């Protein structure tokens, strides 16, 4: 118990706000949110950060068409929301590592969707404005084998 103080006095508004912000940032940190702004009464803040790299997963099985010539990896949705394409995305195009492929709008927060490896955009599994769930495959990338 240290110096015998047991707890913080939560009647102090600024202390309460700091605690709330800390808890809120903890929630944001564990998510893939890249930009957020928050206001409460006279207090407010804005945060932006580099987007986290998305986990690539084995691509979903195809129906035999568009056979890939390298390693196939899926880019999946990081959250629940509605998906929107980046204007730069084209099927068959070569994309760079960390290129923005689109974003998922969840509760008015845009969660960026990027590929963390370079490759060819082999398949698109989603339509503009489609509702997506966590982990849902959005794209399949064909990543060249390294010999």
């Amino acid at each position: 118990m240290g110096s015998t103080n047991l707890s913080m006095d939560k009647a102090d508004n600024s202390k309460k706000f700091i605690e709330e912000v800390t808890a809120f940032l903890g929630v944001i940190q564990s998510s893939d949110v890249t930009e957020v702004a928050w206001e409460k009464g006279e207090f407010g803040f804005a945060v932006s950060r580099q987007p986290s790299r998305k986990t690539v997963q084995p691509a979903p099985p195809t129906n035999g068409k568009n056979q890939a010539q390298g390693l196939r990896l899926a880019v999946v949705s990081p959250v629940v929301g509605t998906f929107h394409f980046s204007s730069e995305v084209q099927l068959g195009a070569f994309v760079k590592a960390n290129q923005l492929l689109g974003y998922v709008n969840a509760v008015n927060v845009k969660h960026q969707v990027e590929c963390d490896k370079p490759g060819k955009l082999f398949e698109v599994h989603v339509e503009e404005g489609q509702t997506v769930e966590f982990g849902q495959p959005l794209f399949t990338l064909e990543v060249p084998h390294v010999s």
Partner: protein
Amino acid sequence: MFRKILIANRGEIAVRVIRACKQMGISTVAVYSEADRNLLHVRLADESICIGPAPAGKSYLNLPNIISAALVSGADAIHPGYGFLAESMQFAEICASHKLQFIGPSVEAIAALGDKASARNLARRLHVPVIPGTSVLRSVSEALKSAEEIGYPVMIKAVGGGGGKGMRPAFSVAELEKNIPFAQAEADAAFGDDRIYLEKLLVQPRHIEVQILGDSFGNVLALGERECSLQRHHQKILEEAPSVLVTPSIRKKIQDFAVKIAKGVNYTGVGTIEFLRDRDGQFYFIEANARIQVEHPVTEMVTGLDLICEQIQVGQGKKLSFSQGEVEIRGHAIECRINAEDPETFAPCIGVVDALHWPGGPGIRVDSYLCQGDKVTPFYDSLLGKVIAWGSDRKTALTRMRVALDECVVGGIKTNLPLHRRLLRHPAVNEGNLHVALVESLLSEKVLI
């Protein structure tokens, strides 16, 4: 009238709520983690949305994903079940700000009852007896002084707590000084709030709780009591309604206490007001739970009410359709919680359920999500299901429960079925001589294993 409800939970309570919605003609949206993809609640719901990976913090406690799932699915209400976000003020507030009806009490009621110390103060103001104790403690010296005034033994309790977490007994000054840091650390880990208070520790009390139901018109009804004295480490394992020692006059007294507390916070929806009864027959308020409880089926079986449907009706803004005088307690009901745990060490068990048979017959009800072939994972609580037995009297209910549990098969993992089977044959249980330390004392005497 709700068109669509999202159930922000999993397991047996998600199945329970989905069933109630289907009976009411309301569409359902299930949410699930990647570990729960193949579970029953996902298959039963009209729609389902994956909200995150297995860990609860990234899925069932992931507010943004749950809210987003409700918005994209077009749900107009969210049922939180129990545990997880069921008593989260933040969640209730966020639902309201997105025009989603939170099926539960108001944010203010959750706040008033969720803080255990303020709930005690409320009870005191309403002249409902509380266990002698303190408000939030500010120092060790204050704790020691208060304990001297209350008289040892005392119980250290977490202000933000419930479910038995953050509780430590102290029988002396030395034990109090030693246990305060442990209790604070446990409270902080469980609830993110290390504030504590003291209560007098009652010796061998009985846990009696009252089910309440309130609407937004100021009506609050009491739906009888439940006895939940059979606990291990403050976790209930067997509950029953009514309590063998509650006479009609005692029932009226504790129901009046419960309704008074509920009305004191303008309570709407279902909730439970918990009491401890000491050996002298004195009832003391201990805490209120602003949600549906695991053991709600025993109340349903003796009253004939569907508490989830009533909860949804109230959530839709409807007035209670019956009065206190129309509440009747008929017969006796017992519930056994079947957990995936080692019956001797009580360590949680995981694995694939390779054989499953739930019992049936007159007066037997099973609330479970479990299906044969399911994988029990380490990410969530160990409750597999609840077996409930009703009879015209307690003896019949006990007999039906013994037969039911003897028939029950859960293969591939260990469960506490053997513990229940021995408990139901112990004279103390059969005679109704219960108290909250009974299970622990029988275990320590090696009577139940």
